[in-house]
């Protein structure tokens, strides 16, 4: 099942009240927040109502907040030496 990955890029401050309501119903509370919604007609209609404010991608599977955070984490550039043996173990 496909999902829309929706990120709020622009705030609805100062726009008509119903726009804020649409964002709330999508689960977007503050700028740069990301939510996953299933690809459905009602969700598509909501996205069309706020298309100037959001960024949308179609993805196969929703990610949790922890998974999205892990993706943003930079490569530490090192590994702990004591685990190196297991890491480079080619005997198996």
């Amino acid at each position, binding site marked *: 099942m496909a999902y829309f990955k929706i990120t709020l890029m622009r705030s609805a401050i100062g726009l008509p009240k119903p726009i804020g309501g649409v964002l709330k119903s999508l689960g977007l509370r503050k700028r740069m927040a990301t939510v996953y919604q299933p690809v459905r007609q009602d969700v*598509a209609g909501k996205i*069309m109502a706020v298309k100037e404010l959001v960024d949308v991608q179609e993805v196969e599977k929703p990610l949790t907040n922890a998974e999205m955070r892990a993706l943003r984490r930079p490569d530490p550039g090192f590994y702990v030496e004591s685990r190196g043996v297991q890491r480079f173990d080619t005997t198996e």
Partner: protein
Amino acid sequence: MFGAFRPSGPLFGGLLWKIPYRLSRPQKYRHRQRLKHVDKVVATVDAALQKLGKPVAAVERWKEEMPTEAEMLAKDKYTMFDKKVKKYRKGIHKLPKWTRVSQRLNPPGF
């Protein structure tokens, strides 16, 4: 000389334009990027619905009526109809919240 109480035209005068009558080049560039971004959002939603096989009226109507950024004339991108203005055109940046609303169509003939 400087600061909030400097004697400048807009602060001391009555009716003085504070919004320039035309967009600057970077403003126009950013405006085009915003138009393209909206096109991209609609295309993404449309592609997902095509796979689902269920059309949505809002998307179909947008596709039918609205020109994409590439199809739009420069005149329609950067200016909009206004009956109160000489020659019936004003800069699109005079539209309230112009960076967050879609204004693509103008009356035919204007």
